[in-house]
């Protein structure tokens, strides 16, 4: 299997190199998306299927869609990415030598790093955590505070984007592209099915809130692209949208507080009811991740009165 790994590593290097070194904005973005897919395969090889699922949906899908949409909105003068080697100065050379030196050190450090790990500690408390799958247990119970802060970071990002400008409506679709709305309509039940499947599976196998939210968000971005979610742009629904965006974080905070009231520690879930808490948080987190990924795609504040 070393041959497969070698091929994967070479593919990752090639796509990353083309993304960073060659001229052309579109080519760079396409290479980044290919790089994301190769990384998803590498995660599978490294026994990280949860990460692979999220990377395939977010790293290759949503990031690529965001970048391509922005590229489409830019004037032609912004499309000329110079190749880096074109201005090979003494400064670039010095930086390269320094960075290569750091690379060598980093490689030696990573390979010779002691890896204590917390496998046994996690396995010991897994039974009380409410989820059989260790990654889900860590995300939603053991280290739930991290996930809470991560949802807060996403909400801050949405707030930052909304404060910048008005939402940029998707380009009007006309009859020249007949297949796209149909595809979005046909695929949406499957997106919902995959979302529910990941949520259900997350308790005992790779899946859970993050891949589920990413898949639903990707499907939502497809619907936004085809203009199928008109309500998000309407002023009347703006307040509802704000509440929905905040709902995941609020629910998370409520759970943390109720854990504090019941057990005395913030976010301490009582083992007897932990599984119910986890399912509720999982659904809320996945839905709010999906909705926030979709609002990223608006690049601004929707629903402003004209």
């Amino acid at each position: 299997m070393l041959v497969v790994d070698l091929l994967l590593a070479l593919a990752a290097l090639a796509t990353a190199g083309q993304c960073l070194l060659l001229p052309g904005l579109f080519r760079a973005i396409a290479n980044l998306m290919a790089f994301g897919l190769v990384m998803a395969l590498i995660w599978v090889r490294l026994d990280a299927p949860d990460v692979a699922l999220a990377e395939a949906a977010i790293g290759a899908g949503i990031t690529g869609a965001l970048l391509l949409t922005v590229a489409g909105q830019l004037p032609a003068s912004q499309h000329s990415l110079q190749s880096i080697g074109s201005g090979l100065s003494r400064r670039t050379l010095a930086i390269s030598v320094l960075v290569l030196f750091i690379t060598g050190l980093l490689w030696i450090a990573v390979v010779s790093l002691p890896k204590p790990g917390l496998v046994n500690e996690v396995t010991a408390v897994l039974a009380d955590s409410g989820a059989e799958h260790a990654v889900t247990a860590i995300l939603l119970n053991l280290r739930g505070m991290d996930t809470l802060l991560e949802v807060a970071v996403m909400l801050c990002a949405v707030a930052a984007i909304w404060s910048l400008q008005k939402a940029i409506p998707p380009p009007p679709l006309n009859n020249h592209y007949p297949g796209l709305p149909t595809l979005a309509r046909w695929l949406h039940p499957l997106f919902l099915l995959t979302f529910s499947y990941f949520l259900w599976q997350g308790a005992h196998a790779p899946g859970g809130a993050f891949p589920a939210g990413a898949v639903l968000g990707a499907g939502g971005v497809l619907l936004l692209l085809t203009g199928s979610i008109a309500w998000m742009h309407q002023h009347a629904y703006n307040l509802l949208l704000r509440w929905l965006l905040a709902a995941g974080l609020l629910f998370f905070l409520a759970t943390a507080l109720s854990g504090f009231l019941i057990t005395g520690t913030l976010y301490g879930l009582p083992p007897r009811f932990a599984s119910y808490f986890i399912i509720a948080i999982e659904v809320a987190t996945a839905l709010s991740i999906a909705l926030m990924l979709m609002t990223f795609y608006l690049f601004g504040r929707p629903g402003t009165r004209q």
Partner: protein
Amino acid sequence: MSLLFTDIALTSDALFALLGALLVAMSLVSVFTARHLIRRLLAVNILSSAVFLLLVLTARTADGIDPIPHALVLTGIVVSVSTTAVVLALYLRRYRREPPC
């Protein structure tokens, strides 16, 4: 020094560690030298992927797969797409082509 290198056998882990280190190097050079802001953003994205790769490698312990780095990386992926979205919105505010009316 030779004692350090004897630890590095040619395994998949060592290979991916080398890949991660090389990706860190390439994207760092790009972050520092690229003129186009989007190129820097792409470089930051690749840099974060490389860091995730190094993190997941530390999860492969002698006792089995440590799930904590996996959870960290999942959180990190979502945070990195949030950063990308904010940067792109800032970039659009500055450089967006006026829509043809």
